[in-house]
């Protein structure tokens, strides 16, 4: 087992924990993106470049985008709710 693998594994374990413990969804979306990149590096270290590429496009781009836009949609509605009251 190489040092790079050990280091990225530790980073992934830490990153996953941080994502779970961050209770604010907006910050979480950002951390998910970073966590996704960390996972991609781990996959490169595991000699799986295809999976790493998928993980970058999904974990670091598509998922955070979905989360942020869903949140926006929710927050917009809360704003409109407030205005109407």
């Amino acid at each position, binding site marked *: 087992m190489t040092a790079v693998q050990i280091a990225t594994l530790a980073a992934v374990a830490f990153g996953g924990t941080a994502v779970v413990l961050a209770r604010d969804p907006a910050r979480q979306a950002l951390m998910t993106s970073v966590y996704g990149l960390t996972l991609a590096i781990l996959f490169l270290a595991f000699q799986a*470049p295809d999976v790493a*590429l*998928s993980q970058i496009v999904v974990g670091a781009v598509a998922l955070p985008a979905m989360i942020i836009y869903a949140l926006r*949609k929710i927050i917009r*509605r809360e704003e*409109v709710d407030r205005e109407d009251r």
Partner: protein
Amino acid sequence: MSYRLRMVVFGAGVLGFASLLIWGLGGLPDFGDFAGRYGQYLAHSALPERHATSSIAVTTFDFRGVDTLIEEFILFTAAVGVVALLRVHRETEEVPAEPEATRWPTAQSGALRSLITALVAPVLVLGIDIVLHGHLTPGGGFQGGVILMSALFLVYLAGTHIGLGPLRPMAAMETAEGIGAAGFALIGLGGLIIAGAYLENFLPFGAPNHLVSGGAIPLLNIAVGLEVMGALLIVIGEFLDQRLLMQKGKL
């Protein structure tokens, strides 16, 4: 159930689950000592059997192609499902009148907008490149499809509808994902009719390391690229759509 009771249940369960995982994972071969013959056989028969250099692509699209077929349809299902779940309901909903312009948020400053517009072409090319070289290098229809989706998404951000013309973009994307998904299944049907088994290769393999090699794999990659691009754009577009779903009476 109170929070405390829930945590007691969860705590007891997690202790059992953790010991179960340790017990099971302890039986795995040491990290790095895996000796599965199946994987090694596939890794070493990609080049001789299919003249393609990426054995992951050959495994994905040929040896275990049916898994990938269903995987594409899972993504397709999700896109259809998201459209169905976020649809505006006729009776109980009212859609507050909003100007068309604010439905699709665009970048505010003009400079940023032209920067984004400039990015569209390179990203588009990158996506197409990754789709087309899926059987040679890492990447393929899925990864390329997501990048293509990003390129079209930049078009929205730039606030122009270049390339989409008078088409309603969502309808065009539904067509793209439908054709992509059904295309994969139909190429497989071609294998059934011409070669004898579903998803069996029925095209010449070409020379190794060339763009046209690997039999039907490049075609399948294109179908997947189309499908992924359409499906993800629909999903993101649905979340982006700023029309608010409001219940009558709850305002």
